[in-house]
């Protein structure tokens, strides 16, 4: 930043923070890709599978280490909920639930990094390595505060709900259920409408709950960052501590609801 430039106003600061690093940079309508969401989520996803696969590969039956036990606690938590809630047979639901939980926890946890840290690093790299205008270097570090990430997961779950329903009841059985439940065949259009609302409300509620929490959390961190530096801790520390709860709770809720929705899909209405 050159000395002649004015400091950003609060709304400029927040708008800058809420802009994604995207390609094409000027925005390409639907075919825009958010590179920050993509890279951050990919790196965190690789950290998750890398760490877990490493533990799985080296897992010892006897005398497990502390880290192995930590991983086992997570696995057993997921397994426990699955056994309690999901009564069908599926190879995908357990890994799905585990991936959702761990990935969302990691992505949400990006909120704990100082809100300006990675964007500032990106600005320095962008300006000094790629010769970009630092004002046009954007980076949002919390993938789950990106609506695309939230909907990518919730819509994938919705697709699985349909797949599970069809594989459990057959294509005919599922179609029949869409038109006959809950009011019986006489009110087929009303049934179908209601079923569609039910089906579509699931990804909406999943995605918006997660997005709303993480977006709001990010926003509050930005507001705190605009306070004078000597009082930031008074608001930032309590919010960050409270946010630990939200980070884990939102991941847990997303995972639990996924399990519940999928178990509803394989059970009869």
């Amino acid at each position, binding site marked *: 930043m050159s000395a002649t430039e004015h400091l950003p106003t609060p709304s400029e600061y927040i708008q800058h923070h809420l802009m994604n690093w995207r390609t094409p940079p000027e925005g390409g309508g639907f075919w825009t890709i958010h590179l920050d969401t993509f890279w951050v989520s990919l790196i965190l996803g690789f950290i998750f599978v890398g760490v877990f696969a490493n*533990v799985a590969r080296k897992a010892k039956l006897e005398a497990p280490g502390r880290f192995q036990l930590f991983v*086992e606690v997570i*696995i057993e938590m997921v397994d426990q909920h699955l056994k309690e809630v999901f009564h069908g047979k599926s190879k995908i639901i357990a*890994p799905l639930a585990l991936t959702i939980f761990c990935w969302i926890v990691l992505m949400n946890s990006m909120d704990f990094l100082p809100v300006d840290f990675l964007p500032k690093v990106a600005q320095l790299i962008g300006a000094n390595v790629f010769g970009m205008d630092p004002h046009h270097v954007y980076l949002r570090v919390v993938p789950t505060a990106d609506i695309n990430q939230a909907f990518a997961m919730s819509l994938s779950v919705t697709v699985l709900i349909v797949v599970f329903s069809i594989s459990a009841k057959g294509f005919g059985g599922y179609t029949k259920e869409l038109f006959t439940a809950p009011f019986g065949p006489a009110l087929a259009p009303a049934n179908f409408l209601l079923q569609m609302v039910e089906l579509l409300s699931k990804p909406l509620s999943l995605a918006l709950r997660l997005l709303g929490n993480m977006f709001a959390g990010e926003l509050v961190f930005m507001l705190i960052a605009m306070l004078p530096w000597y009082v930031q801790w008074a608001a930032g520390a309590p919010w960050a501590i409270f946010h630990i709860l939200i980070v884990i709770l939102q991941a847990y809720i997303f995972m639990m609801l996924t399990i519940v929705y999928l178990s509803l899909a394989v059970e009869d209405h």
Partner: protein
Amino acid sequence: MDINASLLGQAITFAVLVWFTMKFVWPPLTTMLDERAKRIADGLAAADRGKQDLQNAEKLAADKVREAKKQASEIIAQAEKRAAQIVEESKDTARVEGARIVAGAKAEIDQEVHRAKEALRAQVAGLAVAGAEKILRKEIDAAKHADLLTSIQAEL
């Protein structure tokens, strides 16, 4: 804050992560956990079995000890009985032996008495003959009255 192709990209990333977890993370870990749970259950069962075995063994040992005590007391009783019997037998033997010794002694005494009597008789006969000889020397011829002397000797 707009929905765009990022959604598809993130969905693909999500699918890849789920696939990887399904392939390389979940199965080995759950298999290992199941195996550990089984091993723990087996261990507990073995401990229970061991406890049961120990109880059985203790019971067996107590039985053995009781039996041994019983046998020992039986043996002692038998031995005492036998000892009493032996004492009794030796008393009898001693009594018999004593009687035999006494009888032998008596017989010997009798024999001695008899022998002494014989000797005395012979001596008395000799003395009588000598006396008679002295008396008769003067009037009787020894050769002549030999028959008479012998019959006297026999009567003594």
